[in-house]
C-alpha cells in the first residue's frame, strides 16, 4: 500500500524535506505560542516528540486490532492518555517548564502532527519503522521550534537560555520587544518558512507549499501520504470523487489541479482516467 523507504530516509526526512512545521504546516499553534524562548521551544519539541514516538509505537502495534471505522476516536483516546501521562511527568520533574508551557501541554493532544502521522504512517507500517518515523518527524519539529525560540529570545530579550548575549545588550543593538510578542512570532515564523521552502527547492527541487491551501489539513499531509489516503476511507475532509454527496467537496472541484499541477503530473493523469 505504502512506499517502502529505508530507516535512514524516514529518520532524516523530517528535518528539511518534510519538516512537519515549516513545510507541512502542522502544529502551528504551539510553534507560535510557546517559542518565546529557546528553552520553551526545546521543551515543547521534546515533549511533542515523546508523545509522537509513543503514539506511533502503540498505534502501529494495535493497527490490526482497531476496527477501521472507529480508528480516529481510538487514536485520539490513545494520544490523550499519553499526553496525560506526560503532563504528570513534567509536573513532577520539570515544574518550571510545565508552568511556562501551560495549557499547550494538554493541547499536544490536538496537535495535527500526531494524529496526522498516526493516520498516514503508523496506521499502515510496522512497529520499528513507525517509531523511526516518529523520531524523525519529532526531530524536525524540535529543531524548527528550537531555532524559532532561539531567534525570538535573542532578538526580543537579548538572552539565550537565559544567559545575556553581550554583543546585543552592550553593543549598538537593543533588544526588540516586538519579537517576544505575538506579532514577532508570526514574522519570524514567516521568514523561517520562506528559508525552508527555498532550501527544500534547492535540495529536492520542488515547492510543496500548496499543502496548506487545501481544505482538509487534519489528516492528509504531504504528496506521499496522499496516495495512502486514496486507498483508505477518509475520515474527514473531502472524499474521493466516486462517492459524491454529504456536502463533501473533492479537492479537484474547489481548486482544480492547484496542488497536483506542479509535481504530480503523472499521478494526476491516472487519477483522471480512474474518474472517467
Amino acid at each position, binding site marked *: 500500500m505504502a512506499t517502502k523507504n529505508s530507516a535512514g530516509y524516514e529518520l532524516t526526512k523530517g528535518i528539511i524535506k518534510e519538516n512537519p512545521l515549516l513545510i507541512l*504546516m*502542522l502544529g*502551528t*499553534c*504551539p510553534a*507560535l*505560542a510557546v517559542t518565546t524562548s529557546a528553552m520553551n521551544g526545546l521543551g515543547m519539541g521534546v515533549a511533542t516528540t515523546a508523545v509522537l514516538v509513543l503514539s506511533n509505537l502503540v498505534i502501529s502495534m494495535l493497527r490490526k486490532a482497531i476496527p477501521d471505522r472507529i480508528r*480516529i*476516536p481510538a487514536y*485520539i*483516546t490513545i494520544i*490523550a*492518555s499519553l*499526553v*496525560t501521562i506526560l*503532563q*504528570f511527568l513534567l509536573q513532577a520533574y520539570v515544574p518550571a517548564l510545565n508552568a511556562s508551557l501551560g*495549557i499547550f501541554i*494538554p*493541547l499536544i*493532544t*490536538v*496537535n*495535527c502532527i500526531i*494524529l496526522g502521522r498516526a493516520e498516514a504512517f503508523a496506521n499502515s507500517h510496522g512497529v520499528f519503522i513507525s517509531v523511526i518515523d516518529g523520531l524523525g518527524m519529532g526531530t524536525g519539529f524540535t529543531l524548527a521550534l528550537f531555532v524559532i525560540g532561539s531567534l525570538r529570545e535573542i532578538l526580543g530579550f537579548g538572552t539565550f537560555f537565559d544567559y545575556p548575549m553581550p554583543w546585543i545588550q552592550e553593543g549598538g543593538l537593543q533588544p526588540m520587544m*516586538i519579537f517576544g*510578542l*505575538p*506579532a*514577532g*512570532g*508570526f*514574522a519570524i*515564523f*514567516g*521568514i523561517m*518558512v*520562506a528559508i525552508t*521552502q*527555498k532550501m527544500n527547492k534547492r535540495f529536492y527541487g520542488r515547492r510543496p*507549499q*500548496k499543502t*496548506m*491551501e487545501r*481544505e*482538509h*489539513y*487534519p489528516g492528509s499531509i504531504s504528496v506521499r501520504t496522499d496516495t495512502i489516503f486514496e486507498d483508505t476511507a477518509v*475520515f*474527514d*475532509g*473531502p472524499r474521493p470523487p466516486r462517492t459524491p454527496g454529504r*456536502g*463533501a*467537496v473533492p479537492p479537484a472541484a474547489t481548486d482544480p489541479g492547484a496542488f497536483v499541477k506542479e509535481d504530480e503530473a503523472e499521478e494526476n493523469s491516472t487519477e483522471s482516467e480512474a474518474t472517467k
Partner: protein
Amino acid sequence: MKEILIILFSVILIDNLVLSRFLGVCSFLGLTKSVKNAMGMSVAVIFVMLVATAVTYPIYWQILEPVKLGYLQTVVFILVIASVVQVLEAVIRKIVPPLYKAMGIFLPLITTNCAILGVMLINIQEIYSFGGAMASSLGAGVGYTLAMFLFAGVREKMEKADIPHFMEGLPATLMAASIVSVSFMGFKGVIENLFG
C-alpha cells in the same frame, strides 16, 4: 454582569483567540483564502464552542472534580468534543439545512482544532462561573470570527500585491498576520478605560 462583560470584551479584543493566544492558527491560515470559507468556519466554531462549553463545564465541576479525577480532563474533553461534533452534524443536517450548507464541511475539522479544547481548558483553569465560562466561549468565538474576517479581507487584497518571489505564498501570509496582530496590540488599555 459587569464581570461577564469584562470577560467578554477582553477575550474578544485583548486576549484574541488567534492573534494573541495562538489557538486555532491552523484554520486561521488554512481557511482565510476566501471570505466565504472564513464565514463557514467561524459560524461552526462559535456554535461548537458554546455547545461544548455547556457540556464540558458541568462534566468537570459536577463529575470529575468531586471524585478527584480532574487530571482526566484532557481525555474526557476531547472525547466529549468529538461526540458533540458528530451529534451536532447529524442534528443540523436534519433540522437546519441552510446552516449545515454554510458550515457542513468545516464541522469535522473542528474536532482537531485546538481552539475548542484550548478554550475549554482555559475556562476550567481560570475558575470562571458558568456565565463567565459561556461569555468566555462566546467571546473567543467572536474574536476568532473577527480575526478570520479581517484576515480574509487582507488576503484578498494581497492577491493583487506584488510580492517578492522568495516570500510568495505562506511566508507572505504569515507576515501579513504579523501586521494584523500588531493592530490588535492597540486594544491593550481599552478594558480599563471602559470598565475601570
